[in-house]
């Protein structure tokens, strides 16, 4: 038997999305003194969803700051601190609460570099859980990808797995622009294998680049955040029937990597988009519009199709809630419809 060379392979770590974000923030806090975290319960409570666990103990009051329940105020304070040269991470306990502060995100953060003719930059990260959770009802379940994705001056990312979460939060913190990081509460506890490069302190995922999670030939399935997992499940089921889906994880909402989607559609000739947010004026709507405008349109053998959350405020009862978000069966149905099967 050939001797094993000096190569020693470390077993692949299982890291949850929560741990990945925690690692990412920890590494960036250590790397740059100007980075700090503020938000409700981020310090002594270890984070409402425990994403910032251990950080206050390690870095103290100066760098991990508990705020009062004043979203507009503390988001504005974070933006001002960024203008004055610090690199804040502003956590919204959920993005639903960011609506109270949205003026600071858009008017004070996103637009300032442009309005100042390139003089005043705002290196800030707004992060927190976005979209549907489980049983939290209408006011706590909205997806903000389309709202923030609409605005020039912002970068908006939406991680799916642990690798995404760590690489994107690190890139966001190092970016000199306002970056909105849309996490997902239901993904926080989900473990994923962490590739070895993700274990490096300089592991970054570029903002603005999508990832092909699964190669396929029959149809392009584009998604972001938790639904990426559902798309992969659907792909596994369909593979048994001989249908090979190419699943694209957008990773970034804005600037959108439409080129990766176009190249895929030009190969598969079919497109569906999958998102948790509402259908009207959503992420899928934007993808379809851009596909129509670009070279991929002429390669479509069927109209592009969107799978989205139901067009209702999120209901509470389980049967209603389950049917208000895209399920694997809905994705499979849409794929088969598109392929005319």
């Amino acid at each position, binding site marked *: 038997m050939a001797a094993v060379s000096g190569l020693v392979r470390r077993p692949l770590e299982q890291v949850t999305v929560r741990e990945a974000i925690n690692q990412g923030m920890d590494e960036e806090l250590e790397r740059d003194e100007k980075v700090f975290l503020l938000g409700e319960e981020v310090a002594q409570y270890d984070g409402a969803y425990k994403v910032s666990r251990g950080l206050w103990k390690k870095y103290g009051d100066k760098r991990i700051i508990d705020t009062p329940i004043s979203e507009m105020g503390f988001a504005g304070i974070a933006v*001002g601190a960024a203008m004055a040269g*610090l690199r804040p991470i502003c956590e919204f306990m959920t993005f639903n609460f960011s609506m109270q502060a949205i003026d600071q995100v858009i*008017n004070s953060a996103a637009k300032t570099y*442009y309005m*100042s003719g*390139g003089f005043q930059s705002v290196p800030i990260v707004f992060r927190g859980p976005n979209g549907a959770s489980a049983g939290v009802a209408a006011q706590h379940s909205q997806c903000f990808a389309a709202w923030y994705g609409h605005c020039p*001056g912002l970068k908006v990312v939406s991680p799916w797995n642990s690798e995404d979460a760590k690489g994107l939060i690190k890139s966001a913190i190092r970016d000199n622009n306002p970056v909105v990081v849309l996490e997902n509460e239901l993904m926080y506890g989900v473990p994923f294998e962490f590739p070895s490069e993700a274990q490096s302190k300089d592991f970054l995922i570029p903002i603005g680049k999508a990832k092909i999670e699964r190669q396929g030939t029959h149809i392009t399935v584009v998604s972001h955040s938790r639904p990426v997992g559902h798309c992969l499940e659907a792909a596994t089921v369909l593979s048994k029937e001989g249908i090979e889906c190419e699943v694209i994880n957008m990773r970034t909402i804005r600037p959108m990597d439409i080129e990766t989607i176009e190249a895929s559609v030009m190969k598969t000739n079919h497109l569906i988009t999958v998102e948790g947010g509402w259908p009207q004026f959503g992420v899928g709507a934007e993808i379809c519009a851009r596909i129509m405008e670009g070279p991929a349109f002429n390669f479509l053998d069927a109209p592009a199709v969107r799978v989205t959350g139901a067009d209702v405020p999120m209901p509470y009862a389980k049967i209603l809630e389950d049917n208000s978000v895209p399920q694997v069966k809905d994705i499979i149905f849409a794929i088969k419809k598109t392929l005319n099967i």
Partner: protein
Amino acid sequence: MLAAAVSRVLSGVTQKPASRVLVASCNYSNDAMFAIKKCDLYRLEEGPPVTTVLTREDGLKYYRMMQTVRRMELKADQLYKQKFIRGFCHLCDGQEACSVGLEAGINPTDHVITSYRAHGLCYTRGLSVRSILAELTGRRGGCAKGKGGSMHMYVKNFYGGNGIVGAQGPLGAGIALACKYKGNKEVCLTLYGDGAANQGQIAEAHNMAALWKLPCVFICENNLYGMGTPVERASASTDYYKRGNFIPGLRVDGMDVLGVREATKFVADYCRSGKGPIVMELQTYRYHGHSMSDPGISYRTREEVQNVRKKSDPIMLLKDRMVNSELATVEELKDIDVEVRKEVEDAAQFALTDPEPPLEELAHHIYCNTPAFEVRGANQWIKFKSLS
């Protein structure tokens, strides 16, 4: 006036302007002491001093600066009426003692943020008249390259110019947080008006600044009207210097540049010493309406405006003090007036002749420090290149 018994003149009362007298030899005083109105105090044992010494050099500087702001604003009025300035234009003539006095009370390394009525502070913080006027006329020589306009002008340690009423409150507290974080003993002057004082986010900023002892001076520029609404119709309490609740405050005569200077030194010292935020209300007045679309006489009388001009004009007040105490002559100040007019006129010429920003730069400066990318125009075939 030129009596042999020279020395210090305590002048708290506005005297009639000195008539022109030939001065045989230029015998100026080097400095003079003046009385300042005592400030109303809230949760403070002591306030700013009630006398101050003004040097000739400082006096001439403040005079020139206030006159420059005045003439610049009047020029903006003219350019707006001639349609060279578009959109919103909020002028601060009448409030010159505020911007000049504030600047005199802090260091260039301190920080200032204000509302949309910002042109005066843009100038005192270091922007040239020509870069301000050219920004107003939307030219590439404007301080924001024509991208911002009246409400979005920036320079080092000056964070605008903010269009959303009250948003600058938390921003200023954040700048103060950065000062404390860095441990540099700098302070942030965070200005807002009597109208903005009723914004919830101002209360949120007050709370966090006090909680975390941020070196933030909250300054309420009370010019008695929030757009067309007099203070009594907007605020349950018009004692804006008390509205910080648990934060100490003082109320200052905002038409007296020396009073503003001393009060600013006082509040800046307070913050620098680590005691936390403080609120300063500047009682002032704007001659123009809220903006150029507001004639400013539907909610107040012409007589009221004229009265303030006659009795409390900040430039007149300084001029009288300086002439009466022989810090300067009337002629000398008139010479400054002529120089200022010329500077403003030259700046206006530039603002009218400088070209508009090139169309190719429409999409520049969307992101900082990011590789070039394409930006969509009005339709899918129109593309602009975006550079940082």
